[in-house]
């Protein structure tokens, strides 16, 4: 097996995730796309760990999973809050950062 198989898979997933983050209107979908990106990174971690025969790759993958879980929790809470305040979770409706 080639190292690149996994890396390219990760890259493809990452880009799909980027597309999802940028293109999707629903905030929940955006969060899901972010999960996709994080998973793409995880593959790289594990693949490199396997390649270099170190355990750190797996450990970091686990850490990322944990952080992702935390992130999803907080993210969804924020989405809920937004929904309550604006009765919408369409990210295009949110332009509070406009100067």
């Amino acid at each position: 097996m080639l190292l690149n198989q996994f890396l390219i898979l990760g890259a493809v997933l990452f880009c799909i995730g980027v597309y999802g983050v940028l293109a999707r209107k629903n905030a929940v979908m955006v969060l899901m796309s972010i999960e996709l990106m994080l998973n793409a990174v995880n593959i790289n971690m594990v693949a490199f760990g396997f390649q270099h025969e170190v355990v750190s790759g797996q450990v970091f993958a686990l850490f990322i999973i944990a952080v992702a879980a935390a992130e999803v929790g907080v993210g969804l809470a924020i989405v809920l809050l937004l929904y309550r305040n604006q009765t919408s979770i369409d990210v295009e409706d949110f332009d509070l950062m406009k100067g």
Partner: protein
Amino acid sequence: MVAQNIAFGIISGIVVFSALRMVTTRNIVHSALFLVAVLAGLSGQYVLLAAEFVATTQVLVYIGAVMVLFLFGIMLTKAPIGKSMEMTGTQWPIAAGVALMLGAVILYSLIDQFGSDRLTEGGKIYRTADVGDEVFSTYIIPFEAISVLLLAALIGAIVLARKD
């Protein structure tokens, strides 16, 4: 090795297909289910890479916990369940362009850099016990930090989502 390659190919196909559908489907529940497929596929890939504990965690945490959270989120925000024309924004061409450009450069770099590197055959395989050892020795402080982070996220989520 051939079997592994075949397995990788099949799983990859499913994963990429599911991922694409996930970001393009107009039904948000379908989208979530495609994400489940992606995550499950990745769990398989971990197995191929001899990372059994990660694979298990992937299934438990992601498919078991995170996806449930997502579904709760979908339901709580009364997102239109079923087909909706408005799931994708008007700027998807730009997003696609950016993603393709990014993908192109990453792919080029990867092929350029790791063109024909083979994965180590018969190298040392780390089992769950090894991972445990490592986590509780070398990475004990990050582990504790992650624990605190999770706690903080928990509290933060509660504070944010409270109704008052």
